[in-house]
């Protein structure tokens, strides 16, 4: 069945690298998808801060549009995911409310569309084995922490995470792709994105804490799935540094950029050039280090094999022909 892909406003412009890398990863994993026809904004935070019915109707319009493609919708943006998922849950369980929403819409939403977040879709509908089976590039020396933020894991009844304090979906996907995932305690702390425009001081402090915790955990990059977290941690890193007197330079990568690289996509395919804190030196170094580690392991393995062979030869040849064995070895 074809998946309805809902890009959302951020992926069209400010997070174009998230959009591109997600599409490419879906292609590599042979997921068939089509864009939701004539999609419009999900309403984001302002709509549901103003009026509940407004927020639900804006989201329901997209669910209705998605029914033209199928009954599964993927919203890579964590904020769009929350809005669309909330609408799905509330409309599907309450017929009276569905009728109220349909009164507002131009034409009614009669379907049963299931909304997926990106990690959730990749885990449940594609699976770790399939991803692990297609890994082409060794990223075992890339040290990252997955950052879930507010909207991807909470509340667990909705998102399908077993524990909303310690979500694991991104961890599992990154491990399947062979990345060195570090454990940390800031997976779900808020980065302050939604007050980034009106209350700058609060945002700077929250963002700074996330960066500091990631570095302390031994990570060299933070992996995110939310365009708002990305803008905050990546684009606003210099300002946050200035405000706090710090000098962080932590690349912030989208989940699909990392998965894509592991699956053999190029830096251009996943648009590494669009990230503000340049991730390319780090990626190159990690790949080179992985190759060095592999060479070293191969060398050790060869040495060990040679030693074992030599020992066996000794045993077979007995004591008299020791000289010959040494000659053969050198």
């Amino acid at each position: 069945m074809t998946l309805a892909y809902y890009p959302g406003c951020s992926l069209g412009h400010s997070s174009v690298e998230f959009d591109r890398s997600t599409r490419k990863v879906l292609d590599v994993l042979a997921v068939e998808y089509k864009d939701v026809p004539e999609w419009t904004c999900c309403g984001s935070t302002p709509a549901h801060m103003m009026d509940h019915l407004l927020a639900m109707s804006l989201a329901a319009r997209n669910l209705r549009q998605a029914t033209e493609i199928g009954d599964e919708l993927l919203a890579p943006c964590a904020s769009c995911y929350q809005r669309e998922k909330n609408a799905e849950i509330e409309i599907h369980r309450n017929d009276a409310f569905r009728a109220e929403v349909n009164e507002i819409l131009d034409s009614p939403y009669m379907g049963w569309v299931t909304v997926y977040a990106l990690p959730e879709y990749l885990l449940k509908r594609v699976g770790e084995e399939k991803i692990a089976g297609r890994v082409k590039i060794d990223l075992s020396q890339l040290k990252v922490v997955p950052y879930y933020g507010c909207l991807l894991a909470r509340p667990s009844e909705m998102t399908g995470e077993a524990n909303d304090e310690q979500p694991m979906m991104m961890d599992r996907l990154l491990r399947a792709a062979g990345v060195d995932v570090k454990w940390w305690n800031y997976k779900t702390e808020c980065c302050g994105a939604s007050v980034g425009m009106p209350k700058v001081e609060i945002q700077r402090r929250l963002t700074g804490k996330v960066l500091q915790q990631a570095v302390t955990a031994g990570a060299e990059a933070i992996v995110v799935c939310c365009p708002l977290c990305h803008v905050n941690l990546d684009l606003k890193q210099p300002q946050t540094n200035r405000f706090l007197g710090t000098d962080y330079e932590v690349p912030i990568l989208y989940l699909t950029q990392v998965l894509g690289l592991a699956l053999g996509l190029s830096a251009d395919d996943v648009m590494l050039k669009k990230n503000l804190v340049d991730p390319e030196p780090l990626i190159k170094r990690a790949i080179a280090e992985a190759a060095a580690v592999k060479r070293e392991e191969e060398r050790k393995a060869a040495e060990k094999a040679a030693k074992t062979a030599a020992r066996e030869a000794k045993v077979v040849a007995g004591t008299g022909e020791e000289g010959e064995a040494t000659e053969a070895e050198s």
Partner: protein
Amino acid sequence: MRLLQVGLVEKVLDSRAIQLCIQCLTCTARCPRNIDIAGIFEDLRTVSAAQDRDVPEYAKTFNKAFMTSLARYGQLPELYFMALFYLGTMKPTMAMADVPLALPMVTKGKMQVLPRRAKGTGEVARIYKKTMEKARAREKAEAVIAQGNPE
């Protein structure tokens, strides 16, 4: 939550806490009594705005600028929205602080400079209009009821 339980609704509606909440949902996820605290905050915020209480100016301007942009373009035109917001706040210093952010976005091709009208915008504008009319009608009805039954 305790203030609401003991009936001090007014105090809650005027509190700064409901305005500062950034809807990170931590409280909802952690509540041992399974109260959807963030959801209640969201409702309190809409009520306090509807009753014209002391809602911070930036919040009103932010939401209004956002919805105005949507009703005109269907999908969020970032630059247009930021311009509307900063014009609304009448705080040029705030806007200046964001200029260093906008520049790399434009040079990296990550900011749409001229907004385009998305297909389906008409319906978005109608959704906005209809729900706002409905909300105003509801407030009026509630105000009449409140006047009719003084406690």
